[in-house]
């Protein structure tokens, strides 16, 4: 999201009379303004990204001699069932990281906006707290909560159960994201024209119809932002899974982030890791493009 530097609109037509030299300088000046940011962006985002694209075409352990692999690493990403299923798990996390938090956040924000409470700052802080905790700490805390000697008094650890581990890890994502979505949506509600609500009341709308016909459409932009941030978090999830299950039991909670880490640091297969990372980033871009199309104002 750092690449939103926008060139100032050119004043077409006004400078047509100016000598060619001046016009040329005028065209380059805006570039100068974005240059510092562009240099950093190129050095720390674009070049490493292209570099990892390049490495993904090699079989390389990070230290020794690299051998050309062509597209073999990419073929493996799509044919190896373990790698493929980790991609599926990441997309499944969108339900827990985005859909549930936005849904819960919408309802909470609508409720809170309708009935302003005195305890509001406290509620906001508590709901937002998971956002400011390091995800590793979140993982450690929830690992304990889900364990047999945790506060839930569970019979046996959920994280060791093949059926429960995945939703258990996913719900941590919900817990983390809900506060962010709630705050974003709440601030959005404040910007909705009050007259729309009045009009809805005059038309005889109940609170539920008001929610669907005024609040939700009015929050289109905020929902788009919340979805963008949380979907990226879902697809790039690593910390929570790594700390809580390491991808287990079996491979039930394996996600690309953990797989990439293992490929590089355990298996010594930097090329295959870069291929998986590239596929993941392209898929993320595709999802973001689709999301943008969906939420763009008509």
């Amino acid at each position, binding site marked *: 999201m750092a690449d939103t530097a926008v060139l100032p609109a050119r004043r077409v037509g006004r400078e047509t009379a100016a000598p060619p030299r001046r016009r040329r300088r005028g065209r380059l000046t805006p570039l100068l303004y974005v240059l510092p940011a562009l240099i950093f962006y*190129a050095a720390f985002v*674009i*070049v490493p990204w*292209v*570099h990892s694209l*390049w*490495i993904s075409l*090699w079989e*390389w*352990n*990070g*230290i*020794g*001699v*690299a051998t*050309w692999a062509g597209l073999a690493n990419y073929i493996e990403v799509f044919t190896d069932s373990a790698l493929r299923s980790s991609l599926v798990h990441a997309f499944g996390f969108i339900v827990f990281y985005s859909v549930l938090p936005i849904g819960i956040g919408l309802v909470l924000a609508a409720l809170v906006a309708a009935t302003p409470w005195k305890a509001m700052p406290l509620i906001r802080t508590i709901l937002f707290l998971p956002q400011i905790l390091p995800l590793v700490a979140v993982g450690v805390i929830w690992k304990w909560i*889900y*364990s*047999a000697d945790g506060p839930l008094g569970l*019979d*046996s*650890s*959920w*994280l*060791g*159960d*093949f059926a429960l*581990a995945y939703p258990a890890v996913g719900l941590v994502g919900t817990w983390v994201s809900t506060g962010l979505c709630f705050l974003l949506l709440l601030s959005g509600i404040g910007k909705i024209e009050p007259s729309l609500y009045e009009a809805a009341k005059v038309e005889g709308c109940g609170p539920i119809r008001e929610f669907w016909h005024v609040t939700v459409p009015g929050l289109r932009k905020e929902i788009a932002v919340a979805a963008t941030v949380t979907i990226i978090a879902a697809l790039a999830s690593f910390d929570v899974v790594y700390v809580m*299950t*390491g*991808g*287990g*039991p*079996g*491979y039930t909670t394996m996600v690309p982030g953990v797989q990439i880490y*293992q490929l590089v*640091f*355990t*298996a*010594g297969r*930097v090329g295959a890791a870069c291929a998986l990372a590239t596929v993941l980033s392209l898929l993320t871009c595709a999802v973001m493009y689709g999301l943008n199309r969906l939420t763009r104002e008509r």
Partner: protein
Amino acid sequence: MKIDKMLAIVAVSALAVACAPGSSEAPAAQPTGPVRTGAPAEKVTLSLVSTPESGAAIKAVIAAFQAKHPNITINYTDTNYDDYNKSLNLSLTSDQAPDIALLNSVGTTVKDGLVRSLAAYEKAYGWDKTYPSTQLAQWRVAADGSTLGSGDLYAAPAGFSLVGVYYNKAKAAKLGITAPPATLADFESALAKAKAAGELPLQLGNAQGHAAFTVQLIGQSQDGAENAAKWTFGHKGASFDTAGNRSGAQKLLDWAQKGYLPKDANGVDLQGAVTKFTQGEGVFFIDGNWDAAKIGDGLKAEAGFFAFPGAKATAIGTSVAYAISAKSESPDAAAAFLDFLHSPEASAEEFKAGFMPADPAAAEPETDTVMADIVAAWTKVNTDDGLVGFNNNATATMNDKLTAATQELIGGKSDPAGFITAIQDEWAKTHG
């Protein structure tokens, strides 16, 4: 213009990377000339890297070594176990490569020419006579750089670990078990007795895949240490599909189904299981001597230990071993330190820190402690030449594979045949 700019950036960055990643040449040939034994007389500063677990002893060993050779200074640094293993190769290639480095497994250090062959030093110092052959075997690497058990020596052992069976003597006595079981059948009937008495028969934490110990111990106790080691060391043509391993996988599944294992074993890690065992949950517990202090403190005189039952005593074990970096400028001084690792002073320090010394005679535990049991088991295993390296180290990814595969086996998501195939396929990716 936007497109032009983007193309230009891509072109520039493509230029910046347009060469094969990593070094383009094969690692330089190892020096082979004559070597000097004994500590050099001039002033030498060496650096040594380790992990806190292994480093506790080595710090004391360094102090003893420096007292003997005041002209040699050894700077010690440590990093926690996981980070250490993941960053070792990078640090060995860097300009600040340490002279002496702890090796937890050979990995690709030999293939990539990161550590120095100790063949000349082994001959000069006579290490092949100092240590029993099985103690050095796991640090011998064949010319291909990945097959272990024969070839040049690349690291010298400092202290040994040993995996066997801990048991709660008080609970066992209540069940009428007065002596450690002598056969697998005895062991199984003891587990059954414990279950019938409402005790948890076998404590286990498998979040990190430690059920692999159970499979390996059952397997090698039937197949024999020598055969089992062939697979662990990656010898061509070896197979995981042996009668012993099939039985090991089947028993693990049976025990899970009969309720001999904790229900949530897959969700508890090793340290969690150790804690539960010291709190009296479980009659038996398969684990290594690295947890002896914690279990001994927790269960006091009730803590016991025995080598896994079988016709011959076998155990899973490895040594913490130190290698000399290929970049070291003072290999002779470093080798003198490695030779010091089997001295009586060093052995005593290793034992104090919980490691088994190369020479069992150097271990003098207090009688009637869990340490005394462990030393007895260690002696027995050495007499029977029954030490086998960890299956988890058979390939770089084997630990991850064993973790997932044992979790699936215990969780009833796969069967013993599927388990054996999955493990053998993973092995064949490296050694096939």
